[in-house]
């Protein structure tokens, strides 16, 4: 808190009603910030929407890495089956869905075995729902990170999304086995897979940040989120193909980022044509959700320490 004289930002006449016992003693400010990093920061009240401080996020990028690592290590540490859970969860979901929706309800699966079809949808969906659910809880389960220290708080809900990426890659491995088993070959569309994964990450971050901020203010969201995810799954084409939705209403489905993403995953992995309009609308809504989540989070962030 050295206020060097040449600093133009300093108010030269601090109005203070304080009685100074010995004014000389505390005015020992060193005129030049010798040895300092030259790092100057100003803390003041801000109003309305606050821009994301990208420079700060970049400076602390290692912290995000450590938080992601922690989430991965902790997630399976005390479980007997460990990482196997990352395989078992989607596999069981696939088996159940295949039995109920593929066998009994006979939902069409676009000429591929229903198991492969539903698993291709579960890949992005499981990633999305795990990320969002954990991101939403992240702030209230780590209150001390809000009230005892300052750090780029965006990282706290972002870390579980990074952790879920590891699960996603394991799931991809399982999917590869499934493809071999059912003798399916992906087409050239698979080169777009990284882009689709990125889109899923963007959507998950947006929704996760928004729900994390809401959960701090309204603890009810702890109960709302799991329920919301259940409804969201049926609103997304996880167990049914997009084609089942009449063409004139498909844009409604595409407004749900997961609509286009899941359809895109199937196109990329199962060698079928991309539904570009649907994908385009979903991409736009992913980015929209992301921006909304980011800015809402930034807006609410100021109050976190007071209400957490």
């Amino acid at each position, binding site marked *: *808190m050295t206020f060097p004289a040449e*600093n133009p930002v300093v108010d030269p006449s*601090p109005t203070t009603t304080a009685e100074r016992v010995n004014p000389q003693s505390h*005015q020992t400010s060193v005129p030049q910030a010798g040895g300092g990093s030259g790092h100057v920061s100003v803390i*003041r*009240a801000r109003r309305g929407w606050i821009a994301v401080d990208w420079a700060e996020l970049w400076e602390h990028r290692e912290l995000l890495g450590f938080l992601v690592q922690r989430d991965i290590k902790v997630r399976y540490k005390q479980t007997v089956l460990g990482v196997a859970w990352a395989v078992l969860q989607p596999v069981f979901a696939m088996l159940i869905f295949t039995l109920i929706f593929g066998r009994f309800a006979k939902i069409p699966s676009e000429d591929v075995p229903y198991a492969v079809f539903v698993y291709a949808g579960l890949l992005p969906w499981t990633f999305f729902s795990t990320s969002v659910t954990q991101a939403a809880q992240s702030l209230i389960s780590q209150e001390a990170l809000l009230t*005892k220290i300052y750090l780029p708080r965006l990282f706290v809900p972002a870390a579980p999304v990074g952790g879920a990426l590891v699960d996603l890659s394991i799931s991809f491995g399982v999917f590869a086995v499934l493809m071999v088993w059912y003798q399916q070959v992906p087409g050239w569309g698979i080169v777009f897979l990284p882009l689709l994964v990125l889109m899923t990450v963007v959507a998950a971050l947006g929704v996760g940040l928004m729900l994390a901020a809401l959960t701090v203010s309204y603890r*009810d969201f702890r109960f709302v989120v799991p329920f919301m995810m259940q409804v969201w799954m049926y609103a997304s084409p996880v167990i049914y193909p997009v084609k089942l939705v009449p063409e004139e209403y498909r844009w409604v489905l595409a407004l749900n980022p997961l609509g286009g993403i899941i359809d895109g995953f199937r196109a990329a992995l199962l060698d079928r044509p991309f539904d570009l309009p649907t994908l385009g609308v979903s991409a736009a809504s992913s980015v929209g959700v992301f921006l909304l989540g980011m800015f809402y989070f930034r807006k609410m962030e100021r109050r976190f320490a007071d209400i957490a």
Partner: protein
Amino acid sequence: MYRLGATQRRTETFQELIKSLVLAPVRKLHRMGEQIPEQEEFWALQDISFEVGQGDVIGIIGRNGAGKSTLLKVLSRIVEPTRGQVLLRGRVASLLEVGTGFHPELTGRENIYLNGSILGMKRREIESKFDEIVSFAEVEKFLDTPVKRYSSGMYVRLAFAVAAHLEPEILIVDEVLAVGDAEFQKKCLGKMREVAQGGSGRTVVFVSHNMAAVHALCKTALMLQKGRLVAIGPVGDIVQRYLAASVEGERNSIEAKRPMGAPVWFRRAEVFSAEAVGRPIRMGDELTLRIHFGADPAIRMPRFGWVLSDSLGTRLVGANNRYQADAPLERPARAGIISCRLGMVPLMPGRYQISLWIGNDAADSHILLDSLQFEVVAHDLWGQAKTPPLGSSALWWPATFEIEHDTQTAPALGG
């Protein structure tokens, strides 16, 4: 700034939010023609301007609720000020708690990296200090053990060790020294002194209740009262002023309100001499501490503890029914009274304060630090017209002295 009146309308749960949205127009109708009650504003801090030079070590002192913690939180960027600004030149690190972000499932090694990073250290910095941190904490053998298996002493040592090896240009520290066993506290204080006086040019802002620690570490001090800066200057003068100010406000009894969501809380607390209520407490008096508690849900056995400290903040004695086997109430109650008979506490004349804790079996839910304050006046207990000299010791022990002849050695000495 916190809007107190507004808390009534602050929507805590989603249900209330929805209700308030639905009722908003109705409320507006009601309000027409009726005066809108003014919101009561509460400024946690106001009119605080000060400078700290590079390399200065400044202590912030003040009573509970004076705004010390809020000031620290503003300086550490945890809470954003409503008005005003702070200019910081240099990298800032704040220590409001040791071990923030420690994860019990992770090993000591993993937690060093995680906690270091949370405190703002770069990976390379942590790597270069790693061995120092480990040896300071004395946990070499348990580096790859999850910290949940650590003893509480080890845990605190490791947490402090990471924090102690931070090298920011500006360090903001809250009473973290009040951790660990006596020996480790000494080590921490030594480390703090090294940081503060090592000529490292580091600026330290230090908040504490412990006047002895403030005196030992800081050159300058700043005193807050009700959110305002009342004095700043050499540490000796300010500590004197603080002590003088606390004499004015003797509080043998206090009233308290339920903190938000607390299952058990204090409603009232008082300390008095068993001999005569309302009379000044004299040396040798038997003391009683009585508290009135509230509980929701009803409880059979609130856990109540207290610690008595002297005017410098040194904790002298304490007790807590959490560790004792006293009989609970026959049936759960929503309110009750606990009387704690301290017996004759051998206090020297002087100022004392009592911190209070209450909670249920799981955790403490209401803490009133240094809330009861009282004076012990000198009293000629033995009818000798003499009292022990002040400052000879913290406590005066009610010992008895027996004297007898030494028949074995006396003859040899020619007695």
